[in-house]
C-alpha cells in the first residue's frame, strides 16, 4: 500500500512520508506565549517523543494536535487534511488515565467505540481483544479503583488502541506508574510501535524514556517555546530491547540531551 501511495503522491518536497505535520503553530494565553511559530514533522509508523523541561509547551502542543486546544496561529495537517477538532484519526492516552470510575474495564475500553455508535456485542468483542493485548485478560469486569496504577494505564492504552486511530497521542502516560511497571510498559510500547503500524506521539519529561522508546526525539525549549533539536536514535533499535540500555549510542544520546537541558533544570 505504501508503494502505491508513494507512486501517486505529489512530489511536494523531499520530506519523508509524515503522518502529522505541525506548521507554524503558535499558542498564546493572553500575553503569555506558550508556543511560538513551531513546526514539526511526525513520520508515519514511528514514535516521536516531545521532550523538554516543564513549561516548554509539550503537552500544549499535544493537545493542539489532538484538537482539544485551538492554536492561535498555524495549522495541524494529518494525512493532507487540516484538523481543528478531535477526530477518529487520533486517540489520546491521558497522564491521569481518565477512566470512568463507575464503569467496568470492558466498558471503559469500549467507550470510544460506544461514542461512535458501534453495537454493544461488536464493541465488546473488539475491547476484549485489546484487553488481552495489553495483558489484562480476566479483569474485564473489574472497576478502575480495583486496579493498580499500571493496570489502569493499560486500560487507557487499550481504549486508545480499540478505536483503531492512525495516530496515538500519549501525554506522559507512564509518569503516574511505578518504576518497574514503567520499564515493562516501555518494552511493551516498543512492541506496539513495531506491530501496530501507527504513528505515536509521546510526551515525556524523562530523557532515558525518550531515548529508549523513540525513533525521533524533538527537544523543546521554553521561553519562547521552540524545537531546539531533533535527534533520531537508530543504531541500537534492532539490537534487542534488553541491550538498549547499555548500548554506547543510547548512553551518548542521553548524555548529550542532558547537556543541552541541564541549564533549564531548576
Amino acid at each position, binding site marked *: 500500500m505504501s508503494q502505491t501511495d508513494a507512486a501517486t503522491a505529489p512530489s511536494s518536497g523531499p520530506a519523508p512520508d509524515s503522518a502529522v505535520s505541525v506548521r507554524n503553530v503558535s499558542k498564546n494565553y493572553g500575553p503569555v506565549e506558550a508556543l511560538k511559530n513551531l513546526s514539526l514533522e511526525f513520520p508515519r509508523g514511528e514514535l516521536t517523543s516531545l521532550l523538554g523541561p516543564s513549561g516548554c509547551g509539550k503537552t500544549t502542543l499535544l493537545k493542539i494536535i489532538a484538537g482539544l486546544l485551538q492554536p492561535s496561529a498555524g495549522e495541524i495537517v494529518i494525512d493532507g487534511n487540516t484538523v481543528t477538532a*478531535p477526530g477518529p484519526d487520533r486517540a*489520546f492516552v491521558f497522564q491521569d488515565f481518565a477512566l470512568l470510575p463507575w464503569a467496568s474495564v470492558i466498558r471503559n475500553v469500549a*467507550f470510544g467505540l460506544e461514542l*461512535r455508535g458501534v453495537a454493544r456485542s461488536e464493541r465488546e468483542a473488539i475491547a476484549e481483544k485489546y484487553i488481552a493485548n495489553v495483558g489484562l485478560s480476566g479483569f474485564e469486569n473489574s*472497576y478502575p479503583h480495583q486496579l493498580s496504577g499500571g493496570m489502569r494505564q493499560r486500560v487507557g492504552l487499550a481504549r486508545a488502541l480499540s478505536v483503531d486511530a492512525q495516530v496515538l497521542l500519549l501525554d506522559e502516560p507512564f509518569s503516574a506508574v511505578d518504576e518497574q511497571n514503567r520499564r515493562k510498559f516501555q518494552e511493551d510500547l516498543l512492541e506496539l510501535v513495531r506491530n501496530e503500524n501507527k504513528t505515536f506521539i509521546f510526551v515525556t519529561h524523562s530523557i532515558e524514556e525518550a531515548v529508549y522508546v523513540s525513533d525521533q526525539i524533538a527537544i523543546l525549549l521554553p521561553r519562547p517555546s521552540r524545537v531546539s533539536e531533533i535527534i533520531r536514535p537508530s543504531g541500537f533499535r534492532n539490537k534487542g530491547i534488553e541491550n538498549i540500555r547499555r548500548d554506547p549510542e543510547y548512553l551518548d544520546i542521553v548524555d548529550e540531551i542532558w547537556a543541552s537541558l541541564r541549564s533549564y533544570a531548576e
Partner: protein
Amino acid sequence: MTAFGYRLPAMSSLLVWGLLWEIIGQLHLTFFVPPLSQVIITLVEIIGTPAFLKALRETAIAFLSGVAASVLIGIPVGILMGKNRLIDEILLPWVNIFLSAPLTALVPVLMVLFGFGMTSIIITTTLFAIWIIILNSRAGVLQINRSLVEMARSFGASPLDAFFKIYVWAALPEILGGVRIGVIRAVKGVIIGQLLISIVGFGALFELYSSNFLMGHFWAVLLVLFGMAFAISEFLGYLERRVAYYAASR
C-alpha cells in the same frame, strides 16, 4: 452500639424515646401529649378512613410532583451552571437567595397567584426542594476531573453524550446528596403549603384535629409523616452509599 456488653438493635434509641413518651403520656401531665400507645391505636383506626386516604393521596401527588419538578429542572440547571460560566453568573445569586429565603412567607403570594389548590402546594414544594438540588449538582460538576471531559471530547462525544455519559455520572454522588436534602425540604414544603392553605390534604386534617383538640389523631398523622420522610431519606442515603465507591476516586 453496645451497652453493658450487649449489642443493641439499630432502633434502640427510638425505643427509649418512645418509652419516655408513653410514661409522660400515662402521667396525664397535659392533654397535649397523649400516651404513645393511644396514638398508635388511633393511628391504626384512622389509617383506613376515607379522610386519611384522601389526605395521603393528595399529599403524595403534591409531594411527588414537586420532587419530580425539582429533580427534572434542578439537576440540568445545576449541571449547566457548573459547565457554563455565563449561566452560572446569571443564576447563582438567585439560587443562593432563594435557598436561604424564608419561603413560607411566599406561600400567601403563591396562593394569590395560583389559587387555593394543588398548584400552589406543588409550587411551594418545588420551591423548597429545588435550590439545594441545583447547588449540589453545580458543585458536583465543578469538581469533575477535567481530563474526563477532555477524554470524552477526544473520542468524539457529542454534547448530549458528554452530558448523559460523563457529567451526570461524574457528579452523581453530589447530585444524590442534593436530592436527599431536597426531598427532606420537600416534605417540609408540602406540609407547610398544606397548613397555610389548609383546605387540602394533611393540612386540612391537621386543622380539623387541632381545632377539635383531637391530639391523638394529630400525633398519629404527624407520626405517619415523620415515618415517611425518614424512610425516603434513608432510601436516598442508601443510593448515595451505592455510588460512594467511586466518589473518592474520580
